[in-house]
């Protein structure tokens, strides 16, 4: 019951929250400098395009004049102006502009978006990519979750990413640029959100059939709320309360569920699928494919293949009361 009270405000807050991944609505220092860089470059781009369009229109306006600049009639147009234009506008100008952009972006801006040094942050979160979901571990605790990353606000966090199978790419545009998840090597990126909220992210590197349904949420909590969340997440699963839930727990442990999933504090310790120790505390299922409520959970267990075709979880042969039992049990894992 107390746990519910802890979670209630969070749930209320989330219900009224935007779900976009807009790189031009920066919510962190990193995304902010990148967005600024873009606005400046776009301004320059429009000017450049305008210049060329002006020249094209000018040529149209002066078209079909007789006796001007016809090499073929011996009326040679002046050669020099052309050379001045090409050398000035075609070589000198772009060299200056491009070198400036290079220096600004790749010598200075990049300092903010680079991976943080190992010791630079106090909190380190590991993200491991799977087809097609995200495993999240908190260095130094037993907390393991999936597809929903919690971080404290205004606190630099070092995110260490790697892949368990194919190449994925971690991307939460409002918090930072993207970083690939490579098999065999660990890449790092910094998350340092300005304000509390929920930020949507998505796998950006094509990773197979369900690449489209490999989303994630980053929850930026107040420091206190984050500490509570982490402490709670590190605890083993809650014991089932109702009789129905207890029946579900038995079926989970003895049935096919336990062959893929872990629930801390039970005999289920397999790591093929997401860790379900606190699954009821998450807002979505199947990597932000469907909301996490009773019907969806039941539907997911029974027909995951029709909701997310090709995903690793088979349609489970559970119907009626037996399905209700498992759902009741999982819904209890707050």
């Amino acid at each position: 019951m107390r746990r519910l009270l802890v979670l209630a405000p969070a749930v209320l807050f989330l219900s009224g929250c935007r779900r976009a991944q807009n790189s031009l609505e920066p919510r962190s220092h990193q995304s902010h400098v990148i967005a600024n860089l873009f606005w400046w470059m776009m301004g320059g781009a429009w000017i450049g395009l305008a210049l060329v369009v002006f020249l094209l229109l000018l040529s149209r306006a002066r078209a079909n004049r007789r006796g001007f600049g016809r090499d073929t009639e011996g009326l040679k147009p002046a050669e020099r102006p052309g050379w001045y234009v090409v050398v000035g506008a075609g070589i000198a100008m772009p060299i200056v502009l491009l070198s400036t952009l290079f220096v600004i972006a790749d010598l200075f801006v990049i300092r903010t978006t680079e991976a943080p040094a190992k010791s630079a942050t106090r909190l380190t979160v590991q993200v491991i990519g799977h087809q097609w979901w995200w495993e999240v571990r908190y260095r130094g605790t037993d907390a393991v979750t999936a597809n929903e990353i919690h971080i404290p606000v205004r606190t630099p966090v070092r995110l260490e990413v790697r892949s368990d199978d194919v190449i994925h790419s971690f991307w939460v545009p409002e918090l930072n640029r993207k970083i690939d998840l490579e098999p065999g090597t660990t890449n790092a990126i910094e998350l340092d959100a300005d304000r509390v909220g929920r930020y949507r992210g998505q796998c950006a590197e094509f990773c197979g059939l369900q690449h489209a349904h490999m989303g994630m949420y980053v929850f930026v909590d107040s420091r206190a709320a984050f500490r509570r969340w982490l402490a709670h997440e590190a605890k083993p699963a809650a014991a089932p309360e109702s009789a129905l839930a207890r029946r579900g727990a038995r079926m989970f442990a003895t049935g096919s569920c336990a062959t893929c999933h872990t629930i801390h504090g039970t005999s289920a310790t397999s790591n093929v699928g997401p860790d379900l120790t606190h699954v009821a505390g998450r807002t979505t299922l199947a990597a932000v494919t469907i909301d996490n409520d009773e019907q969806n959970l039941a539907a997911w267990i029974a027909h995951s293949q029709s909701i997310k075709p090709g995903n690793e979880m088979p349609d489970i042969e559970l119907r009626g009361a037996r399905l209700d039992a498992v759902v009741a049990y999982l819904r209890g894992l707050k």
Partner: protein
Amino acid sequence: MAVATPPTPTAGERVDRLELMWQSRPGVLGWLTTTDHKKIGLLYFWATLVFFAAGGVEALLIRTQLSQPNEKLVSPNTYDQLFTMHGITMIFFFIIPMSTGAFGNYLIPLMIGARDMAFPRMNALSFWLFAASGIFIYTSLFLGIAPNAGWFNYVPLANRQFDTGRNIDFYSLGIIFNSISSTLTAGQFIVTIFKSRAPGMSLNRMPLFCFAYLAASLGLLFALPVLSADTILLFLDRNVGTHFFDVAHGGSALLWQHLFWFFGHPEVYILIVPAMGIATSIIPAFTQRKMVAFPLVAIAELLVVFIGFGVWAHHMFATGMPTISLVFFAAATAMVVIPSTIQVFAWCWSMVTGTARFRTPLLFIAGFIFMFVTGGLTGIMFLAIPFDQQVTDTYFVIAHFHYIIFGAAVFPLFGGMYYWFPKVTGKLYYELPGQISFWILFVGTNLLFFPMHIVGLLGMPRRVYTYSDGLGWTAYNLAETIGGYVTLVGILLLLGNLAASYFRGAPAGPDPWHGPTLEWATSSPPPDYDFPVIPKVTSAYPNWDPADRQEDRRKLAEGVLVLDEGHEQVATSPVDGLFAEIVEMPHESPWPIILALTVSLVFTMLVLQKFGVAAVMAVLCVLALLGWHSKEPQES
């Protein structure tokens, strides 16, 4: 009585003899065995149009699937095959063969005053290999096992462990198969441009079109082997059990990306450079003005490909390579822009200071400049590593390279179809429908691709088969889909116009545009021997030198440089176009198509993993080659 001295033949008699010497077999057999660069160019044209249609249908299916959230038109599996085949088709089976195979084959010998390519039979071989490789890879689509890991096909996703079917074997073998054909074409062009130019056409008097095609060919020649190497390694990993890309056994997943993009980035410049060449031939014709800053434009066309070999890792900025490695590619990415700006301002200033006639071809070139500059300006943004890392693998990149690859690489192909239509068919096209087709295409293309910038910045990743509502992407995607169908209408109108003109168009005469280069100095359509006299060349715009053309006519009467005693062509020195020798050219031959057949047998056996049989088929290839070389020129 001068009975002993035979009368010198008249011009007419000499032409008759050329006709006899160069005429090709009639009927289907003639097309199957032809070595005439014009016929081969036309074969390429029709074949690539078919693949263009296929790639277009794939594109429209993709757009329809994405027209609204959670659309269920195609399954995820089908969608993956569709976007992979769309990429492969448009790059390897439409743009490259259309610009090099069709335009290059038909026009290069005409522009340099030659009678055929340097290696006519190799030219035929490259076409038949191209056709076979296309059939080979499309078989997989009809069997429902087409490549499905994207055209850049990253491992480990594309390796046996995660892609157990034949799909990727079709990819790797099909790509190698197609590369052989492209390499032959590229080598063909390089040798022809260096060795077969009309005497006197030194490099500083060579049309810009040829500089562009030289650049593209050199690019293909040096880029394709690296792709072949990469796909060979992948094939070995998948079928022989090697571990090049297998991290668990000391391999590297990034190795694939390095090798692929070392090919892949030059490739996109190879796509665009022929378009630049077409622009540099259309602009002088429709402004009646020589190109501004000719030497700079010439070197720019070569530089864009050369520097293009040094930028590949800007496709890999998000892979976690160290900053100090990335900056090398960012710097090259910055400066590879300069050759393009040189050309853009040279084109624009030629149009401003010439007397521009905005007929359909020039309209398409103006559209090309607009699209090229737009795509180029978004391309510049990728040299800013942090911004690139923000938008890479999103629809922003899709927008960028479709502006370049469709807007900039294909628009000039359309313009070129109109421009050279009178030369190829001897008929004039209908002007008004032509201009309408341009405006429909221009509007449709921008409606199709511009919103992709926005939707990319709004966070839509590429290669998602669907997306959920409420992310702010829906309206833009719908607009793009509509734009797609508008573009389709424009293309159909264009092709319909050309078809109608072919049957009903007014006769064009040899030179309807008062064009600058040599193809306009011969009749339309050109005779089998291209030129009755090997033309005299004293500038890069030979058709604007009336005195030289006069001299050609006089030479024909006197029988100088007519070469009517044999099936002959001149060969010149590569740099200054000194007259080197007169060589006998091979006649049409059945061996190219036979060799192509045996090669396709080899690849079929490889994809079926019947390696023993494949070896036997390889022996057949050798036998075909022996047959090919059994007859020497002096015996013909």
